């Protein structure tokens, strides 16, 4: 037997043309693996990418690429910095491709690309919120209505939004959202992500809620509940619709004007271990390592039903010849028999 060696897989960045769905260029990022955050900024004729990964010693690496010539098929490495702090999110300052901000669960760093392409970073000075866990941030103009002041809205695991003035690097306000909404559970309101539009701040939480707040966080306009933790919220260009990504792999659209909701897409989150078909109804059952059993229509690709198993992992699935019942085998040796009409478990063997 050969010894197992850890393979260092280099990260690849691909730049896509959205309209044509074509990949413009693909580049290997030297000495970086485990890419986990990136941002893209365009200013006049130039554009840049900033990305965060890890080097071979598992230290955090921040890399900046000039993508102005991407249409010609090449992107140019600009600068790179290594740091010991863990970074979860990174974003360019609006309208400035030489400055960006990064956060980790316990750190906030202000970055600048100097004229000689060197990267310089400054930590946010000590504040009273050192002990809280940061989860996401957005740039917006301060709720004080002085539109010249760029603010950072930083979300925390304990339900606060910290408002920080970018230029002064100073915490000016704390919005405690947990105080403003009726407590649903005793547990803290863990904010997972946010996005800001001109009129609203949209906030997603670990318990699956998306809430559309007024920009000063005084009231909630829309509240929507999803099945799992909200992973990301993206506002459309015209700021009327919000794209919502959840931890269960679903993609949803919320219209802020009509308040209508639409599911676009669902998927398994880990590998699929088995499928079985029902040709007459054009349906399919899939089971996967993410602990879900999903029923699909294979003509439309839509998910029709989902069974979530929290304690056991479903591995094998099979229809009865009549296709009205299916059996599912789990990793712990259990077999469960499901009725498709009633969605009930008819039998369970161990």
């Amino acid at each position, binding site marked *: 037997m050969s010894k197992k060696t850890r393979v260092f897989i280099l990260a690849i960045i691909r730049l896509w043309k959205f309209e044509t769905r074509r990949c413009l260029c693909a580049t290997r990022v030297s000495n970086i693996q485990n890419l986990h955050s990136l941002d893209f900024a365009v200013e006049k004729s130039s554009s840049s990418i900033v990305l965060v990964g890890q080097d071979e010693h598992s230290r955090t690496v921040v890399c900046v690429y000039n993508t102005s010539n991407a249409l010609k098929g090449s992107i140019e490495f600009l600068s790179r910095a290594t740091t010991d702090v863990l970074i979860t999110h990174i974003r360019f300052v609006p309208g400035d491709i030489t400055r960006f901000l990064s956060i980790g669960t316990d750190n906030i760093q202000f970055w600048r690309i100097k004229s000689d392409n060197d990267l310089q970073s400054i930590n946010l000075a000590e504040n009273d919120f050192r002990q809280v866990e940061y989860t996401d941030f957005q740039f917006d103009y301060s709720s004080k209505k002085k539109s010249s002041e760029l603010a950072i809205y930083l979300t925390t695991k304990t339900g606060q939004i910290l408002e920080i003035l970018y230029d002064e690097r100073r915490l000016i306000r704390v919005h405690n959202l947990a105080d403003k909404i009726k407590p649903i559970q005793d547990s803290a309101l863990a904010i997972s992500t946010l996005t800001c539009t001109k009129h609203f701040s949209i906030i997603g939480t670990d318990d699956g809620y998306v809430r559309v707040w007024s920009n000063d966080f005084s009231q909630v306009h829309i509240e929507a509940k999803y099945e799992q933790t909200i992973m990301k919220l993206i506002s459309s260009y015209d700021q009327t619709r919000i794209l919502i990504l959840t931890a269960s792999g679903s993609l949803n659209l919320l219209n802020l004007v009509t308040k209508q909701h639409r599911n676009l897409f669902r998927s398994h989150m880990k590998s699929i*271990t*088995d499928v079985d078909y029902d040709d007459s109804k054009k349906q399919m059952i899939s089971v996967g390592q993410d602990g879900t059993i999903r029923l699909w229509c294979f003509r439309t690709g839509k998910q029709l039903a989902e069974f979530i198993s929290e304690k056991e992992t479903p*591995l*094998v*699935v*099979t*229809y*009865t*010849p*009549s296709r009205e019942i299916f*059996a*599912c*085998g*789990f*990793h*712990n*040796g*259990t*077999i469960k*028999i499901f009725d498709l009409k009633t969605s009930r478990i008819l*039998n369970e*063997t*161990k």
Partner: protein
Amino acid sequence: MKLSNEKQFPNQIRFCLFFFDRHHQGSINGLVYSSNGFYLISSDENGDLCLSDAENKYKSLKILQNVLVRNENSSLALSTSSDRKYIVYIGPTEYLVTIIETNTLNQTLRIDISSCTYVTDEQQTVTSAEAALFARFTPSRFLLVATKTFRLLKFDSYSGKLLNIVR
């Protein structure tokens, strides 16, 4: 039910209880219904095969222990013929392919793939001598066996004759 009192539950009864209470102790890696839907056949990673009565609360009718080869590659262990009358699996060793009747688990054919030979068009004699990964019935009831050295063996599932080796 706790079986703490040895005197109350002599060995024989414990044996039965074990059989009737518990179908599988390892991860399930194969599930097949019989053609009439009356029986469910299941297999697990320890190599156990179980026949359950789907008409009677899925009570186990028959359990064969260690008949399948231990499956580490997480591929599905059981494959049925298109009429669901027969099941094929790899076992008891990785060189044996076994075909059983779905309704009874009775063995109908066993092929030792370590000593199969066939004569190619060029009149060369080829012997297969490798371990199997998994076996599948084709719709026309040929048998395909994937091996650990990335070959595909094609058998006649009635006679067990090796028809071809695809590299």
